[in-house]
């Protein structure tokens, strides 16, 4: 049933983008996945940039290796162990970051490398799995499954609820945690909720664009929007616009014969191109 429902929704994307390359079912499914990923990446990207957490999201992305490893050890499905481990590591980093006097970069750096080393060790012992590692390094949105799309729907709903209540508060906290705390904003609650949601967003994006590029699809549209927006509202909508353009545009471009590019790379290249243009435009505007 779920399968059927997703298929129907995916078919709608063909009306949205009436191109020849949208004929195959896997393209429609990939497009649906990316249209769900775009707002998740854009909005969490805004807060990642505001709170300077791009290294955090990088570390979560790399926890994919350990997620695979844990799945192998306990013979659990990777679809479950990857998000679960990402969540645990995300909350752990946030806990250490809040509690200790160690520099955040150091904390993340240590966890980051420990997680990658552990993953490589376990995966290396298993031939089957080491072939799969490529998939996580580069990602492949074309093979996205029904379960993942269903999970994206749920995550997007939860994430939009969080943004509805948290957008203002996250902005306030990003400017100064101490003022926010004194002025009765539950800083810890928002930070943990955001760390948890961000971990899930990142790990699902890894599936689409790979560990190497996951941070880029979060922060590049947000950074582009920051170049042009003058207030918080514009930041919100512009980051969504840039994220949608790069996700949908990137997939369509990657499907062209002449391009012959993996979708993740095409998405990030398109996003970076928009960033460059916005950067120049912002320079001209201030002059």
């Amino acid at each position, binding site marked *: 049933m779920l399968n059927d429902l997703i298929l129907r929704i995916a078919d709608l994307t063909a009306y949205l983008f009436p191109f020849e390359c949208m004929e195959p079912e896997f393209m429609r499914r990939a497009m649906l996945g990316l249209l769900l990923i775009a707002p998740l990446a854009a909005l969490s990207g805004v807060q990642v940039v505001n709170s300077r957490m791009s290294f955090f999201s990088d570390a979560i992305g790399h926890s994919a290796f350990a997620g695979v490893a844990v799945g192998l050890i306990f013979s659990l499905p990777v679809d479950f162990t990857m998000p679960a481990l990402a969540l645990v590591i995300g909350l752990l980093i946030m806990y250490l970051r809040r509690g200790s006097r160690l520099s955040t970069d150091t904390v993340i750096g240590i966890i980051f490398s420990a997680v990658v080393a552990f993953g490589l060790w376990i995966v290396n012992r298993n031939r089957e799995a080491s072939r799969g590692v490529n998939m996580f390094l580069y990602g492949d949105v074309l093979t996205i499954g029904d379960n993942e799309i269903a999970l994206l729907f749920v995550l997007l709903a939860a994430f939009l609820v969080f943004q509805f209540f948290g957008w203002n508060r996250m902005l*306030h906290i990003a400017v100064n945690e101490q003022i926010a705390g004194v002025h009765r904003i539950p800083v810890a609650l928002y930070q943990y909720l955001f760390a948890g949601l961000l971990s899930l967003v990142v790990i699902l994006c890894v599936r689409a664009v790979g560990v190497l590029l996951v941070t880029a699809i979060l922060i590049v549209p947000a950074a582009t929007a920051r170049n042009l927006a003058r207030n918080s509202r514009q930041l919100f909508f512009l980051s969504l616009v840039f994220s949608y353009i790069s996700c949908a545009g990137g997939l369509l471009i990657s499907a062209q014969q002449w391009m012959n590019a993996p979708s993740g790379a095409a998405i990030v290249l398109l996003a970076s191109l928009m960033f460059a243009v916005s950067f120049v435009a912002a320079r001209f505007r201030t002059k």
Partner: protein
Amino acid sequence: MNATVEQSSPDAVRFEHVGLVLGENRILDDVCARIPLGKCTAIVGPNGAGKTTLTLAVLGQVKCTGRIVFPSLEGAARRPRFGFVPQRLVFDRDIPMTVMDYLLSGLQRMPLFLGHSKRHEARILQYLEEVECVRLADHAFGALSGGEIQRVLLAQALLQEPDILILDEPTSGVDFKGGQICCELLRRVREKRGFTQIMISHDLATVTAHADHVICLNHKVFGEGEPRRALTHHVLSETFGLHLGLPDLHGIPQDVRECPEDCPLRAEHLHLHDHCHVDAPVVHGCSCGHDHGHNHAHDHHEEAGHAE
């Protein structure tokens, strides 16, 4: 007015044997002091004396031994509401937001991307008016100067309708004249709204001119009371641990005292140091060659502090 502060006014905050040890360092050592209700209390002391920590303890942001009580709210069964203005706001100036966006982000429930609430907007404009920067409402927050940010933060703190307003070095980021204006502004708003003000300060001239009560802190409390009485040479040298190169810091209180008790301009004299020319010998005693103007005590203290 000031003479009666000591005995009659009730307390907003009372520190009862407050202590804090971080690692090897005893940051606060058996601190006992009071902060009178509705007045301006200054906490003075050298760098690293635990001044900021003490205010964070009031805010409930650090855990201490001993007790911090709020006698004026005893019956109310609630914690006091605080307003807080940090020393220097270090933040990402590239975040696209207007001053209005930032102030709304702490108040309004509806997310900013859906628009501004007219009710909150009107309230914010009223407070911006009060700190004399209503024209900044639609400016980019990141493009403001240090003094302007300080005012916006003050408006934000006042928007909380605080029982207690805490300012960490409100005059440190601004020049002397700016500091004077800032203190005057605070006094006006305080008299209108009736909150208790706690400010950390390095600047003894400002403290003498603007505070009703002073606490001299260097891990321990070395003295407290009305500035003119509490800031004795003995207390100051104990607090700051300085003996060499320190001019007679008692200079300002003394010449204010030369103004008779019934002088109609006494309040102004306290604020504006009209009698500073009497201090000439103090300035003469110094060979650093700077123009000391009104804040001689401050300058000397700062220089002595660097030499430490």
